[in-house]
């Protein structure tokens, strides 16, 4: 499971990235909110660009995402955690609309899902694809969905297995699919 796949085109950083104060937590709450929002967008865009679904903060603090070498500014681990913490909260709690989720919430908080699409949103994409390609009622393995030729043009092609299972679980809850089989060899039937 590759967490860091490099794509050929370089990531287009937004202008904010070259704004030195972007890397310092802002003392003014309103400004801070705006800053966190921008970080959230940047992290999502970065992960999307690199087809990355989980973010390991300990590794990521040394990548260009959190480290602007040209400006010699960086977001340290503690700050990066604060940003992801904010992303995890819903908008009602004054957070970033649950755009991230800690995988090790109880532990040291170093790996998180980054939801540039939430599992529910992925579920929609998958079910649309299933419907569009007339695979309703047929049985597919999860491997086929993620790695198969049929999904080559889809955004979820090559996706994290665990995330695909999460998304399929959403479809199960909606009564639109059934997942069976043992771990690692799951199959799924769409209704």
């Amino acid at each position, binding site marked *: 499971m590759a967490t860091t796949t490099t794509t050929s085109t370089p990531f287009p950083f*937004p*202008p*904010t990235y070259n*704004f*030195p*104060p*972007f*890397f*310092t937590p*802002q*003392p*003014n709450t*309103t*400004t801070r*909110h*705006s*800053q966190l*929002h*921008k970080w959230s*967008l940047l992290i999502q865009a970065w992960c999307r660009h690199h087809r990355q679904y989980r973010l390991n903060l300990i590794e990521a603090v040394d990548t260009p995402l959190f480290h602007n070498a040209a400006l*010699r*500014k*960086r977001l340290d681990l503690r700050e990066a955690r604060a940003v992801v913490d904010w992303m995890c909260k819903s908008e009602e709690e004054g957070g970033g609309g649950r755009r991230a989720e800690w995988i090790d919430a109880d532990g040291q908080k170093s790996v998180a899902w980054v939801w540039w699409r939430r599992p529910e949103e992925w579920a929609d994409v998958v079910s649309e694809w299933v419907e569009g390609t007339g695979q309703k009622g047929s049985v597919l393995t999860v491997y086929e969905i993620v790695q198969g030729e049929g999904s080559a043009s889809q955004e979820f092609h090559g996706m994290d297995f665990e995330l695909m299972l999460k998304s399929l679980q959403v479809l199960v809850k909606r009564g639109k699919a059934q997942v069976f089989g043992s771990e690692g060899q799951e199959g799924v039937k769409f209704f």
Partner: protein
Amino acid sequence: MSRRGVGIGAFANRTQATQSYATHGANLRSTHTASLQTQLSVFQSLLHTFALEHSSTIKSNPTFRAEFARMCNTIGVDPLAASNIKGKNARRLGEGGSFWTQIMGGDMNDFYFEVAVRVVELCRETRSENGGLIGVEECRKRVGKGKAIGSGLQVSDDDILRAVRSLEPLGSGFSIILVGSKQYIRSIPKELNTDQATVLEVIQLLGFVSVSMLRLNLSWEKARAQTVIDDLLADGLVWLDAQGPEKEYWSPQNLLDDSR
């Protein structure tokens, strides 16, 4: 007329004189008004023809529009005021509508209202990032780009200013302020004091400021410099960068492009 009369008759004389002066004055005034009125109507019809002839250019070309508006301004015709006040009512009453709605078919004031809506939207969206202060130029660029594809409006700085001014009757608290040589739209009804304006001007020139820079360049006391900066920070008008050797304060004016 004549030398001053003597005795009681003089009073009568004087009243007479005042009266004839008054009538003569009234005469003069009325002829004056009449001639002015003719002039005005001639001018109006000329302006009419001009606006009609060039209406498409006025609508599509921002520079031309600005020049046209400037011309109207110098001769004391405010296109916005004319369309603002009478536009809606007149249309409802089925009359000819205001001068401008007649000529431009309501497009002119609708155009400025549209711009005003965009400006308000933009100011609201970016308030948390720039503390309610946005450069007219940045604003124009953003309005020009638009949000959805094809929704960009080709506008000039002048159009933006006019649109902001058209909001005034609403008591919206939107105002234009001048810092240094640059115009800003202030969307929070709060005044900047001279020190704050000075610091913002310095930031405009140098990109950022620090306490020691202010002390050196403006020979301010440390406390004074710090207070001004703290105030600006509290209002969200500057952002702090604490990763350098000294704390630096930057203006968020160039951030706009990515906040989509």
